[in-house]
């Protein structure tokens, strides 16, 4: 059943599929991680991926360019982040509830609007997308070359994003402030850091990153928009953050892990048509549960996560 893992051609294909499938997870996980590091629960990732996908389709369809799609996707992501920030930070509504509300809103809004904006519905679109960029020489290396160096720009972007978030959090002054705000906002406040401003900035940019995950799906994978196309990726990204213990590099690896099992299950479906596909489709979710149970150990989330800050609280 698993002989494809030793066949070089098939293995390269599985690995490249794995990377492809993990890219939306990486965008969403990095975005969510940034929010959580600043102390805000962004459970809305699932909805923000959907917003991003929808925005990408709208931009690419109306302006005829994938770059416009990218920009509109980012815009949608930022707006959903702003909503989360206003409700969850300033108005102190329970951030889990806000997150769920955003997911529900995104689902309804995007499926309704796609019927309104796209003639024949989002499913019938054929958008202009981003094609692969072959990096000379490197892309000719067997197996690895095809996996790593013959991908589209958003894939490279996601990989750079991981490094950028890691650098931001642990090598810059701003990152230190973000971590302090997420850990002990009262200490950050007393040290002269703007707690609210920092949280707003993180939530808005983080949400935009999650939206890029959706844009990736539309502009490089399917070139159309379909309802609920985020398909649980936002929740898997949340699991990846926990599994990665709020460390960008570890969360990145968790995304790859989930992406890998997704690719494996696709291959298993393909190779074993006699078995109902649902058996395999459940695999990544099963893995994420097992990973969370088995590897949880002592994961320490930022201690103020999900708790709105109130300076005058007695």
């Amino acid at each position, binding site marked *: 059943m698993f002989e494809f893992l030793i066949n070089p051609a098939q293995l390269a294909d599985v690995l490249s599929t794995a990377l492809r499938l993990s890219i939306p997870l990486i965008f969403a996980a990095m975005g969510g991680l940034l929010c959580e590091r600043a102390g805000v629960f962004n459970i809305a990732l699932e909805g923000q991926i959907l917003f991003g996908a929808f925005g990408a389709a709208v931009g690419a369809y109306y302006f005829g360019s994938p770059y416009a799609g990218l920009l509109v996707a980012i815009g949608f992501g930022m707006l959903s982040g702003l909503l989360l920030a206003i409700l969850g930070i300033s108005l102190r509504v329970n951030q889990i509830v806000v997150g769920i509300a955003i997911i529900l809103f995104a689902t309804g809004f995007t499926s309704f609007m796609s019927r309104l904006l796209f003639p024949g519905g989002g499913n019938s679109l054929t958008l202009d997308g981003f094609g692969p960029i072959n990096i000379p020489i490197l892309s000719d290396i067997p197996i690895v070359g095809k996996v790593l160096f013959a991908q589209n720009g958003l894939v490279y972007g996601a990989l750079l994003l991981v490094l950028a978030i890691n650098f931001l959090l642990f*090598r*810059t*002054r*701003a*990152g*230190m*402030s973000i*971590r*302090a705000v997420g*850990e*002990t906002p*009262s*200490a*950050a*406040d*007393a*040290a*002269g*850091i703007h707690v609210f401003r920092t949280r707003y900035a993180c939530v808005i940019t983080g949400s935009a990153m999650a939206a890029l995950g959706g844009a990736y799906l539309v502009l490089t994978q399917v070139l159309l928009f379909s309802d609920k196309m985020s398909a649980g990726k936002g929740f898997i990204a949340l699991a990846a953050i926990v599994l990665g213990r709020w460390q960008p590099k570890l969360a990145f690896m968790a995304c790859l892990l989930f992406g890998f099992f997704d690719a494996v299950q696709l291959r298993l479906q393909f190779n074993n048509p006699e078995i109902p596909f649902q058996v395999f489709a459940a695999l990544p979710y099963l893995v994420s549960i097992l990973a969370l149970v088995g590897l949880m150990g002592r994961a*320490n989330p930022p*201690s103020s996560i999900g708790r709105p800050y109130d*300076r*005058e609280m*007695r």
Partner: protein
Amino acid sequence: MTNAPDRLALEGIVKRFGAFRANDDVNLKIADQSIHAILGENGAGKSTLMNVIYGLYTPDAGRILSRGKEVTIGDPREAMALGIGMVHQHFKQVNTMSVVENVVLGLPGRQILDLDEDRRRIETMAAELGSEIDPDQLMSTLPIGTQQRVEILKMLYREADLLILDEPTSVLTPNEIESFFKLLSRLRESGRTILLITHKLDEVMDLSDRVTVMRQGRVEAELETSATTPKELARVMVGRDVVFDVPHTPPKVGAPVLELDRISAVDDRGVSALDELSLSVREGEILGIVGIDGNGQRELAETVAGLRNLTSGKITVSGRDAEGYDPAERKHKLGVGYVPEDRQKVGLDLDSDVSLNMVLRGFRERPFAIRGWMDYARIRSHAEDLAKRYDVRMQGVSQIARDLSGGNQQKIILAREIEDNPRVLVVSQPTKGLDVGAIEFVQRTLLSQRDRGDAILYISSELEELLLVADRLAVIFKGRIVGELPASEATSEKLGLLMTGKEVA
């Protein structure tokens, strides 16, 4: 110096929380390069006032003058710009970060972090303050005294010349307090002004140049320290005469009631906390447990109360093995009362009202519940009765426990634990954070319980208090009892040596 403008002056400051006036027309003048104490009971409005000065609270009325110039302080950044730095009672630090990160947090500078220069500066500054600090150590791994130094350093690093210290000694051990006092004098000599908030009279007398006494949100008096006495200060602070000596009559000691036989236990991290510790408390005596915090005191109290399992050894109460009894059964069947160290998290349910807190340990049983049905009328009248006898000051028994002062919260716990006449009473840091009036009440209550024949295990880090109340003292060090002596023979010096694990000749 008389002509120089005051470092800081407050005029007519009012701060309200709802209908409650936490600060009511407060006036204050702090001379440059002095140590100025603000003395008051818990809830007198000291901390509120400091938060106003530090820009954490916005006052509802009044003026603030810094070096004679009127200023508004909207947030801590503006306070810092005026050279005001504050060390809060609960340190404002990020435990998961290192010392150097905590110190430079929020300071402007190059975006890309390079903290080598800061590390060096911290080490030099620490040396100037007479202490050694490793800039790369994680905050959470430092002893409390060192954490406090980092807090002070953080302020000096921001070039603060007016330091507000909120109850700075409440977290320190006696040894740490001594060196802390030296540090303060050193700071004053180097040209800094210190505003010391405290409810401890001896600190005011030992350290300050001037003292402002607050009560119920108002300034009651502003005095030259050299021209006043502890007795006068206490009277102004509490509003009545305070007796410092609780009458301590010789105990009428009976048979051993609580016996610990070579008990061992581990702490929350799984590290050995009690190491074959043995002791016994007899009927009608108070055994004081002396020791530097973190030597197993908490685990000792918890094992006796039934909140922590033994890894070996045996606890007997009136000859019965306590093994297998949970905390509720220990109270009701063995008669073990427990006043925990953390009254807010362990002792009370802060979001429940006074009456429920009074029956927290017995609400499932008669007479407060019959066949699973609670008898609220009974619970209320029971609470009203206890509140009267234990002098709990509140609006009524349906007030939420969170809204009461620390002293009144402690009285609720005492009333609850003592009421059904326990055989053994385990009391942990019962006066921590309380003001003189409440301390006196707690001590009197415990002594009268002793006289009724309770065996009391009294754990405290306040040496003076133990010397005053306990009949016998046992010194705990690294989870073992390293010395026992009658209180009458104990001196601070002798105990101090034992507390650090040194043998006494």
